[in-house]
């Protein structure tokens, strides 16, 4: 038996014995899983035991070094672990920006003290993190950010405002970009710093969207005192750290839309849109969706979805064959998000007036959700790098068009 299969057997047995039975088959997506933190709510309660048992083995962060609380596994073995957890349809033991964003950043750019301070707490789900980048005046032009950090002995005094900070109201710490040199070229005066949300002067206000409640918040810093030892990398060298993270965020969003759109899924009798078409538009004497215009748009959307899925697969096949990432991967975010917008829009148009509900009687729950989804999807082409920025990037980096 190979090492891989030996490990699989070991993990399978360990899961059988240690995974709380009540959670088997309780698969949830990353976004609704347990994000940990000082104020973590474990729903259902067994999620607490699940987190503990996985963290104890380092399995919440399987590929991170064991010395910081990770599992020390190779990518291959981590994949086996993920497969076995999925096989039992268990939810992820831990999710969040600690695992996906700040943890990898600390491992790459943090000093030893910072790694020992923060990474174990991330792995155990004790501390929940959020991201402080965008500001009201600095969105696409992030490097123009103005939140100011002024040196005062061993500390920085921070003043300013961050916006779109997801889950800031539920988070314990924030990693933020602040301006430490207002006279330098804008990218050269930025510092990447970690701030405890409990520090006096930090305040959070949730942001409501056109689609209703959202995880987004405004985070204000009023004379917030932060130790200089919380700087990751060099003072004024924060842009480099941030860029690495931004690319990572972009791939995450891209893969979210790549897979959510069905990828290579085989659509036997037409997918969700076709079903919606049959329900709201009826079928004609040939059994076809009775509105030819909308039927055509359904087909277009399904075909776009399939084309994107095939392109994602082509990029993946190419990577597996050892080739360098091709230019096609730069289209995923812009195409996937615009496709999702079209899909949610089409769903609403198919439903017609029944898609005009906000809440309450006369509308089915799925009708209400569909409307909210359409509204929320308008933001997909804005967050994580706007579609216009993506096209700029393609034009510049892939096509070499001049500035």
């Amino acid at each position, binding site marked *: 038996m190979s090492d891989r299969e030996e490990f699989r057997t070991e993990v399978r047995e360990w899961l059988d014995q240690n995974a709380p039975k009540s959670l088997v088959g309780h698969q949830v997506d990353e976004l609704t899983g347990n994000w940990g933190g000082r104020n973590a709510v474990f729903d259902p309660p067994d999620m607490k035991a699940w987190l503990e048992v996985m963290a104890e083995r380092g399995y919440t962060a399987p590929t991170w070094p064991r010395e910081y609380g990770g599992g020390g596994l190779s990518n291959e073995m981590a994949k086996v672990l993920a497969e076995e957890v999925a096989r039992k349809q268990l939810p992820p033991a831990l999710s969040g920006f600690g695992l996906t964003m700040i943890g990898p950043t600390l491992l790459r750019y943090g000093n030893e003290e910072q790694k020992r301070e923060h990474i174990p707490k991330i792995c155990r789900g004790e501390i929940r993190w959020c991201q402080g980048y965008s500001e009201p005046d600095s969105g696409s032009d992030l490097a123009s950010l103005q939140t100011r950090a002024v040196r005062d002995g061993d500390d920085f005094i921070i003043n300013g405002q961050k916006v779109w900070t997801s889950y800031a109201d539920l988070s314990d710490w924030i990693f933020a970009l602040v301006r430490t040199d207002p006279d330098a070229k804008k990218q050269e005066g930025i510092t990447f710093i970690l701030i405890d949300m409990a520090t006096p002067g930090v305040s959070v206000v949730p942001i409501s969207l056109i689609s209703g409640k959202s995880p987004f918040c405004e985070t204000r810093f009023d004379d917030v005192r932060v130790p200089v030892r919380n700087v990751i990398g060099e003072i004024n060298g924060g842009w480099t750290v941030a860029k690495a993270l931004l690319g990572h965020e972009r791939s995450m969003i891209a893969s979210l839309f790549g897979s959510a759109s069905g990828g290579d899924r085989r659509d036997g009798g037409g997918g969700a849109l076709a079903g919606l078409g049959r329900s709201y538009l009826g079928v004609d004497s040939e*059994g076809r*969706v009775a509105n030819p215009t909308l039927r055509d748009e359904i087909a277009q959307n399904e*075909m776009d979805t399939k084309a994107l899925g095939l392109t994602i697969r082509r990029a993946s096949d190419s990577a597996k064959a050892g080739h360098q990432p091709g230019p096609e991967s730069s289209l995923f975010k812009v*195409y996937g998000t615009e496709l999702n917008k079209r899909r949610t829009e089409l769903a609403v148009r198919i439903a017609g007036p029944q898609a005009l509900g906000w809440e309450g009687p006369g509308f089915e729950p799925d009708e209400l959700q569909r409307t909210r989804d359409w509204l929320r999807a308008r933001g997909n082409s804005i967050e994580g790098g706007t579609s216009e920025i993506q096209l700029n990037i393609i034009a510049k980096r892939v096509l070499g068009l*001049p500035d």
Partner: protein
Amino acid sequence: MQLILTEDQELLAKTASDWVAEKSPVKRVRELRDRNDPDGFSRALWKEMAELGWVGIPFPESYGGAGMGLAELAVILEPLGRHLAPEPFLSNVLLAGQALLLGGSDAQQEAWLPRLIEGSALLSLAYQERDSRFDVDAVTTRATRDGDGWKLSGEKVQVLEGNSADALIVAARSEGGDRDPRGISLFLVEKGAPGLEVTPQRRLDSRAAAIVQLSDVPVSGASLVGGVGGGAGLLAQVVDRATAGLCAEMLGSMTEAFERTVQYLKDRTQFGVPIGSFQALKHRAAEMFIEVELARSTTMAAVRALDAEDAEAAKLVSLAKARCSDAGILVANEAVQMHGGIGMTDEHEIGFYLKRARAAELTFGDAAWHRDRWAKLSAY
């Protein structure tokens, strides 16, 4: 199904790219057009391509072919498309050739395939009629029983390379209404048969095409390709394969048109700057890039699905043709627009790409037709 080229395919692609670039520059299209060449392509070059083994790629080794598939054929069709090479892969290898391969008797295959593969015989499939639009079942050409044989009467249009063909495979109807899939048969008709008149047509893309008029053309029972009345099924299979092949050609043409346009954006200056620095044009160029990449993925999937006889192959062919049609037209229109005034001149080559893109779009079903087919195949 891996959506990447194998090492062998990569090698074939490189060889084909280099060879076609050298032997078939785009200016050949203008030359053939301007002298009203009766064939519309070069028999000498066709022979060379046959000697390279390209014509025989999807045919069995027993007939002198390479015993490979559409995936390999696609690899050489792309550079041919890139340079708008007029040699008759579509009519000979993909239409008539596949009809013989999938439906021909042993005698027919032995009589024609080896000669086709070595480049010494030319065959065209005559299926399209004036009112067909994209429906291959729309056949009014009549096949009337005559003793052991048949008599064929009717008209076929835009028969690709029909003027040069040594034989035509003609779709004719022995029973059923004008668009009935039942009652269609395919007949092998040799050049010079009594009652057969072939007249060259001039198409905007300069591709060789002909009107074929049949006035009681006598054919033997042995001239049937496939069973009596079984033509629709055979045609459907053949056209799917030809569509996938056409997509590979379209991919080549659109890629070349796109690359020439991006280069033009970098080279052309106005108001003291390269026009490629204008954001509107950058965004439109990026949109084109996305469309071409998606067209590439779907084309690769379609040819591989056909080779693997995948249950989803027909849907994937429709997907590829729809995407290649839309992407091809987008790129071609943008190419002319972005080239400004010179793009509108006959002297400039970019117009040839527009014409080819339109012709390809309106062959074997446009995007709208294929969206409808996708929906039908998906049971809605």
